[in-house]
């Protein structure tokens, strides 16, 4: 109910206070935030975009990026493509033009793909979207930063191999890929198929049609197959339902590895005790980091946090949003270093910044995120930057790291697949890939 009181206050004072907000003479850099806080994926979306806004507020509280303040405006997309496109078009030219776009939605991201080159606006797709966009020669404006779906699948196999004592030990094992029956669910196929053939493990793919609230039949099939691992490439309620169903047929949760969209509190908490021991991939390490403490101290302790409940502070989705914010500010910072420190940069210059991100351990330490994300370095050709991921375990109340540090699969393989797919895309769309040798 307390939200309602807050809201009532806002509505009442809104009519009284029509004075424009005070404008400082500080230079500004504008970022539109296309968030989803209602609809089927609101639980994830609300925390994630709050994380992003928290980090932007933190940056401003510390004086901005070399003195450049970040302004942002939010627009509700409901995870709906049509609404997302509308938000994008509405916000992109505001306040001197957007610097970068992050939608958190596959559908919206794909729909914007064609608009980006026209608007000269970079888009990040962290942990989702086209895996082949890692090839920056064909996709100059898209940045699937840290790790793509294919890198994730490769890292999964790598982790299973580590646990089994070597790649060759996976031979003859049975792995079930329980996937969300949608474009997203099938993202892992090229990589998993390749590994299954190369190493010789038995890959059984079982589809769960959306929304996947009832999985009894599929789990009985799984129990029959007696797999060594179950990959849960799920989304939404399907994840909690899968953990519950696994408990019901007695399949150990310790052998279930979820994708990162099946690896947040939103997925494990509803499953209750059934989620204990469940593993999932993640591109942001669980735990406490200086940057989180900083946000807590600077914002939340002073009542300025963006989350509507402090309970979600530091949740996986929240941290993901913070990382999106970190990468945004780092890209802008990199762009400033080239085009003028302390001055707002254009979206094109931000794109340059994204292509020259160097987040080594030293820099990550400076921003208080050492160990939070894998060290990464992007380039004109490599828009991914890392390709590593971590395996985390749900201990009943929190996620804890399970793998020893970051795990990366066969990077050369993933890169090869991405380049092939990107080349195909370029041929279909008549795009001449950039020559990265000529870029500065």
């Amino acid at each position: 109910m307390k939200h309602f009181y807050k809201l009532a206050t806002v509505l009442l004072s809104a009519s009284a206070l029509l004075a424009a907000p005070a404008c400082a003479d500080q230079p500004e850099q504008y970022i539109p935030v296309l968030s989803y806080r209602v609809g089927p994926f609101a639980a994830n979306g609300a925390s994630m975009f709050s994380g992003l806004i928290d980090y932007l507020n933190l940056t401003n509280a510390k004086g901005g990026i070399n003195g450049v303040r970040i302004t942002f405006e939010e627009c509700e997309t409901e995870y709906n493509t049509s609404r997302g496109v509308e938000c994008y078009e509405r916000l992109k030219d505001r306040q001197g033009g957007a610097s970068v776009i992050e939608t958190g939605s596959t559908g919206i991201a794909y729909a914007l793909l064609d608009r980006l080159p026209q608007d000269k606006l970079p888009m990040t797709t962290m942990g989702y979207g086209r895996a082949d966009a890692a090839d920056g020669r064909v996709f100059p404006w898209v940045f699937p930063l840290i790790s793509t779906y294919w890198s994730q699948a490769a890292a999964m196999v790598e982790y299973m191999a580590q646990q089994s004592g070597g790649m060759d030990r996976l031979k003859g094992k049975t792995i079930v890929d329980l996937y969300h029956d949608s474009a997203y669910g099938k993202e892992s196929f090229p990589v998993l198929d390749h590994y299954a053939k190369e190493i010789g493990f038995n890959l059984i793919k079982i589809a769960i049609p959306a929304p996947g609230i009832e999985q009894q039949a599929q789990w009985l099939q799984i129990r029959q197959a007696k797999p060594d691992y179950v990959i849960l490439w799920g989304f939404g309620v399907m994840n909690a339902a899968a953990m519950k169903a696994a408990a019901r047929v007695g399949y150990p949760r310790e052998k279930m590895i979820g994708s990162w969209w099946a690896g947040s509190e939103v997925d494990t908490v509803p499953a209750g005790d059934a989620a204990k021991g469940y593993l999932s991939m993640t591109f942001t390490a669980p735990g406490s980091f200086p940057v989180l403490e900083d946000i807590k101290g600077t914002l939340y302790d002073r009542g300025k946090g963006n989350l509507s409940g402090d309970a979600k502070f530091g949740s996986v989705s929240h941290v993901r949003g913070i990382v999106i914010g970190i990468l945004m500010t780092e890209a802008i910072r990199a762009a400033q270093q080239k085009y003028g420190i302390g001055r707002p940069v254009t979206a094109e210059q931000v794109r340059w910044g994204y292509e020259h991100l160097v987040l080594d351990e030293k820099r990550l330490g400076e921003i208080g995120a050492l160990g939070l994300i894998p060290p990464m370095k992007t380039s004109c050709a490599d828009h991914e930057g890392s390709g590593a991921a971590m395996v985390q375990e749900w201990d009943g109340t929190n996620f804890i790291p399970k793998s020893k540090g970051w795990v990366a699969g066969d990077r050369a393989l993933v890169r090869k697949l991405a380049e092939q797919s990107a080349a195909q895309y370029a041929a279909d769309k008549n795009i001449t890939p950039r020559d990265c040798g000529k870029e500065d």
Partner: protein
Amino acid sequence: MFYRLSGQFRTSYYEDNRLIGEKLERTVFIATMLVASIAIPLVASPYLLSAVLIPFLIFSLAALGLNILTGFAGQVSFGSAAFMAIGAFASFNLLLRVPAIPSLLAFLLGGMCASAIGVLFGLPSLRIRGFYLAASTLATQFFIVWCLSKVGWFTNYAASGVITVQHVAPLGFALDNHVSKYLFVLVVVTTLTVVASNLMRSNIGRSWMSIRDMDVAAEVIGINPLYAKLTAFAVSAFYCGIAGALYSYAYVSTVEPDGFSLDLSFKILFMIIIGGLGSILGSFIGAAFIVLLPIWLNVFFSAMEHFSGLKAPSGITSNVELIIFGGIIIVFLVVEPHGLARLWQRAKEKLQIWPLSH
């Protein structure tokens, strides 16, 4: 007073048969078309064109398609999004696989594919009625979307089921910027709307309406229900299919099976109910209501936050928008249960006799 009908006499068959009989309405229609085709492209911002007007027109077309089936022929359907998907995927595959096919032809054939499937899935309507039929059209919706995502051939074996569409240039008119996309959509939607209005006055349109009003009676007076129902399904699916192709090629530039979900089907159904069943104008009003109202609410609330300098707790505004949206639907229905088009009708009657009250 403002809306005068007196003094107009139809003295020839031509005049009597005109699509828009009243002079005033004709003037308004022509003026609207002039504004829509000349003034708007000149002055409207890219935002207005590409994010508001284009989706509005496309959804209007889909709503018109469903209205033909539901509003005019009386067959409720939850499967319009599936027919949109067929239109989009058929166009995509035709453009991909048939060398040098004109894109306009591809869209037309895409619509016809939807039409053919529509007839197939319309067959149960010969036996099933009302909400039972509506619920069974869900079979269409789920089966088609499943099929499109399952059979790799449809998506050209794309690594991730979402496909970016080809650039097209119907009749040499390249759809590469907002204005050209808008104009193309406008032309298609206008043409199909005029066709639909004519269809409703024809033999076949009247047979649909008689089936809607009472199918047994219609059969008794010599209307073949098989023919009438299946043609309604065919025409409706064709309209939806074209809308789907436009949605993919002139709006989001992608085709993805999951984009044409049940949600979209419901949305289109909402449009025609709120706009007015059995009303062509209602399809447009309904689409405007469902597409534009949430946007408007969002703009309104963010503007309010901006001017007041206050920030509601995150997520609350979004939920309040949802509540208001639902509330407005209820209020409109209480005021006018027959849809917004009827409201317009009543306003027109009032205008005719104003300032008198009777």
